[in-house]
């Protein structure tokens, strides 16, 4: 396996793109990523497209080919990848493997999703699953974790709300985020209740969006950019589905991040910034612990300490996170990595972490048996 770099990125704002189709959104960022990388469409040896819901919402399929076609990318292998919220990072992991193995010199990873649809409903694990039939929908899967974390470790609902407040503060500096007005702990707590203690402002909104990046063998990347960003570790795991499950800790996060740290030869103390899957406020708290940013059970006190805010010890979700940007499923995990590319390139504007050298993107998707079906951790370095 040879080293692999990110040499180009393209991204839309996350929010409402009513007037644009999924293919148009995707085509736009594909072209942007090619131009950012300074490569021609014919130099891309493979395309990996990530999307979750277009099959069920629009009866669409093999969308990646249509997307890449718009940007002049044809003839090469194109794969359509779905893995719930980690669709984008799964496509990234496969593309990384393809380039690292020598099968491809250059590959594009592109995630896109359209979710601003009337009557979308709450997400669930599929109507053939017993858990769904017994009332499991995504918000109460996370509310059960929140309640247990509060009961076990003394985490407070105010601490949970601080995740939304911090991420909104970050989002106010990110022009691509959907919701950019600052909010207070009181506003979060007093928003309409979804599943105690999670209010509407504790849950990420829906969004349309697309994000793309170009991967290139490191031995070639110097031809295209003076600021290649190295993929230092790329990991995807699925749940271990142990019974009894532990809903106060995310074993998948621990497992995926420890493999990624080992691949990168780095540890949590080396990270300069992190994007994680803050689908709900409690998720980010659990990720602090799962990724080793703070000890087990300390997540609530960790956010309260200010450690994860811009200027803190380890800023998390400087983009504003899914809580502020929204969660266009296929695009989400690609966009997380792009946030890191901007930090490591020093292009993050008022959200820039001085001298950022190491960045982690974590994502997680789909509940099953009290565990998660998929969890990804990617570490990129300057």
């Amino acid at each position, binding site marked *: 396996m040879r080293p692999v770099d990110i040499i180009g990125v393209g991204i839309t704002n996350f929010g409402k793109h009513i007037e644009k189709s999924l293919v148009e959104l995707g085509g736009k960022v594909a072209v942007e990523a090619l131009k950012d990388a300074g490569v021609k469409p014919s130099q891309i040896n493979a395309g990996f497209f990530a999307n979750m819901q277009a099959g069920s919402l629009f009866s669409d399929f093999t969308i990646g080919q249509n997307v890449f076609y718009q940007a002049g990318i044809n003839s090469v292998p194109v794969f359509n990848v779905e893995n719930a919220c980690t669709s984008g990072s799964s496509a990234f992991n496969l593309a990384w493997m393809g380039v690292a193995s020598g099968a491809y010199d250059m590959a594009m990873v592109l995630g896109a999703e359209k979710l601003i649809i009337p009557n979308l409903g709450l997400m669930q694990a599929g109507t053939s699953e017993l858990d769904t*039939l*017994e009332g499991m*929908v995504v918000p*109460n899967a996370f509310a059960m974790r929140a*309640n247990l974390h509060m009961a076990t470790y003394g985490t407070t609902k105010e601490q949970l709300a601080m995740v939304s407040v911090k991420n909104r503060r970050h989002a106010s500096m990110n022009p691509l985020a959907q919701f950019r007005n600052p909010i207070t702990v009181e506003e979060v707590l007093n928003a309409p209740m*979804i*599943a105690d203690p999670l209010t509407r402002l504790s849950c990420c909104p829906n969004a349309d969006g697309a994000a793309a990046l170009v991967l290139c063998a490191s031995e070639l990347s110097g031809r295209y950019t003076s600021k290649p960003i190295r993929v230092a570790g790329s990991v995807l795991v699925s749940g271990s589905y142990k019974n*009894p499950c532990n809903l106060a800790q995310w074993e998948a996060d621990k497992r995926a991040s420890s493999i990624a740290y080992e691949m990168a030869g780095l540890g949590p103390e080396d990270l300069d910034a992190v994007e994680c899957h803050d689908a709900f406020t409690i998720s980010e708290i659990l990720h602090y612990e799962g990724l080793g940013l703070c000890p087990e059970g300390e997540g609530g006190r960790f956010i309260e300490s200010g450690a994860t805010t811009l200027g803190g010890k380890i800023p998390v979700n400087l983009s504003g996170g899914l809580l502020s940007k929204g969660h266009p499923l296929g695009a989400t995990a690609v966009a997380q990595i792009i946030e890191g590319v901007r930090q490591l390139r020093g292009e993050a504007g008022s959200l820039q972490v001085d001298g950022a050298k190491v960045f982690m993107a974590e994502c997680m998707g789909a509940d099953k048996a009290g565990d998660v079906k998929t969890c990804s951790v990617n570490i990129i370095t300057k």
Partner: protein
Amino acid sequence: MNNDLKPVMEGIFEAGPSPQLIGAICPECQQKFFPKPMVCPQCLGEVQDIKLSPVGKLYTYAILRTKAMYKLPQPYAVGWVDLEADGLRIFTLLDPEKIEDLDFGKKVFLRVGPIGVDNNGEACLRYYFTTQDGGDK
């Protein structure tokens, strides 16, 4: 008990005055499961039906306040229950009448009753746990 109603999923429980969940056990490795798996995920061999303990301890729970799927009550509660006799932690609907009584570690009892509809929109039986002992026992 509405005996004319179908269960929300076949083969999951026995209804009646003393309802029981139908799990499975692997004769090879003695691991228990709920619901019954196709084969034992360790040994890949056949598993056998067993009845699970109708009494458990509440591990965690949540109350959904928004409009629910399957015409479940608004609000309704769900949770994970430890069946200590079986060494299993299982997901379950909780008694919609007893939402205010829920607490960590609380003892809960299995019930089967007519709650909500199934995937075909037809009223059906669901299993749930309640904090209230006795009942139709």
